[in-house]
């Protein structure tokens, strides 16, 4: 008999505890899960006969993980259309390296996120909110328009503990909040010592690119910036090849990378 160890491709059953609807296309599914997991890691949601797709952990509880997803295709649409709290489906993971929350404790931190990218950093912010350094966390969260704002309850809660800038790319007349791309607010972040300041930037590639330009202008070192990347994935465990860039596999070496390292990876 084969001595190959455990079959890592086998998904395990998980009961859906709850479904939290943010917008029409973005819902959080609360999956039963007990075990180690870090913010920034991801799971493969696995629906037999439909397929699998990688989704970042957006929340961690004693017996659950939250996965927040956008309905964009086969697996995600199927989830939106066919499940309710109490149903059972399948997961495998967690995969990837995730964020080391302790890395960001005790110093100044800038977080720039766009849209669903709040998911991978949510756990980091939640952790830091409960520490002494909460007041040194400067977060800029950008959404397309007011209707697309997600995690509203969190944002409200965080606004009391950290320095939060909530902005939308565009808004109908009469909107009272901030309007403009996230990059617009980077120059105004109050930082005491930029040489030691760290940053987390997560969002679509163009958002990362232009945010980095602004951050570097402020004097931030590329060695002090972490990003979370995403690629087409199939296996999630470094075998199928889809997510490879140079000698790195986003699924196992990432999705979190130091910017200075990520810069040397060319698709």
């Amino acid at each position, binding site marked *: 008999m084969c001595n190959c160890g455990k079959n890592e*491709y*086998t998904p395990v059953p998980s009961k859906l505890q709850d479904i939290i609807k943010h917008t029409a296309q973005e819902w959080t599914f609360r999956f039963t899960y007990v075990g180690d997991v870090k913010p920034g890691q991801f799971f493969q949601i696995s629906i037999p*006969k439909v397929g699998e797709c990688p989704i970042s952990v957006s929340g961690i509880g004693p017996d659950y993980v939250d996965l927040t997803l956008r309905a964009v295709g086969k697996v995600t649409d199927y989830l939106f259309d066919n499940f309710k709290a109490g149903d059972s489906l399948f997961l495998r993971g967690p995969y990837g390296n995730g964020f080391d929350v302790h890395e960001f404790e005790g110093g100044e931190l800038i977080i720039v996120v766009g849209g669903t990218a709040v998911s991978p950093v949510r756990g980091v912010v939640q952790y830091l909110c409960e520490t002494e350094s909460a007041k040194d966390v400067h977060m800029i969260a950008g959404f397309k328009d007011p209707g697309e704002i997600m995690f509203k309850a969190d944002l409200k809660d965080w606004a009391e503990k950290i320095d939060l800038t909530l902005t939308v790319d565009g808004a109908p007349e009469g909107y009272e909040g901030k309007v403009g791309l996230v990059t617009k607010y980077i120059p105004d972040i109050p930082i005491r010592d930029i040489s030691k300041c760290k940053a987390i930037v997560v969002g679509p590639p163009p958002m990362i690119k232009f945010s980095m330009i602004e951050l570097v202008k402020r004097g931030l070192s590329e060695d002090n910036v972490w990003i979370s990347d995403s690629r087409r994935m199939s296996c999630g465990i470094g075998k199928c090849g889809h997510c490879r860039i140079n000698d790195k596999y986003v699924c196992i070496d990432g999705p979190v990378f130091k910017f200075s390292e990520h810069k040397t990876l060319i698709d």
Partner: protein
Amino acid sequence: MGFVYKTEEFNKVLEALERKYRIFAPVLKVGEGRFRDTDVIRYDYISRIEDAELEERSDFSFKEILIPLSETMFYFTENEIKEADYDARPVIVLMRSCDIQGNGPNNDWFYERLRDRVKFALIGCGKACPNSFCVDMGSNKTDEYAFSIDVVDGKVYCDVKDDELFAAFEGAGGLKDNVEPRFVTEAEFKVTRPEEVPIELFKDPMWDEYTKRCVNCGRCNFVCPTCTCFTIQDVFYTDNGRVGERRRVNASCMVDGYTDVAGGLVMRKTNGERMRFKVLHKVYDFRKRFGYDMCVGCGRCDTVCPEYISFANCINKLNARVKEVTENV
């Protein structure tokens, strides 16, 4: 321990081995080639050594037995996921030195369970294969075999290393002798691999040539003994969708769709970029991570390419460009 057999005697060895093993070997299929009236050398099961094609390199590799084109991973029923069974009967695969070296440790569950029931037998190389550059890739020699086969002037020479198989060889009546398998020491092409590839080279105009020439058919990946990428796909059989399976199917980094993500983002749009991704993986990136180069220089990709793109040439061009770029700084 070595043996020299007449053909008939060696077929007795095969007969004895077949009590436990199936023998998988390259076979010449007349008229089954890509075009009408062309032949192809593909792997198949054999019982007699005359049925194996031992002179010419196979067009397709041994992959089918270890990395099937399409492999069922799981079966689904109403509420159950069941790991797919596999054919666990032991197999002896006849392959050349380069192909044996193309099977490094993989650590993949489905690969390892297939690998576990396979023994490799070495086909000695009497001459270099067309387009080969195995010597410079260091894959022309190996001692990782259960036994070797060299057919010379109607005689079959075997060096037997695997004790488990010894009885089958001993009982067939051949002459005991010292036998060394044949290895080539000069391949058809010479290549020089750059030790380091500076990051600028990833965007170098040298790759543009391939944007013009390559038609992203993916045949080069398909025949390559070391290409193992796959995509997981679910299918269901019945109209009500209650029964189905999860498969993994070979994927090609040259073909459209390999990197497509939601929102229409594609990572490498041009064929030149895809060529760069493939070539650097085979002779640089993989080595950086795992310590040895992936490509074994078998030359199959050159032979199969409809656009006559040469992998060996590409490695040499890359090396020349690396020299130019690093000497000019």
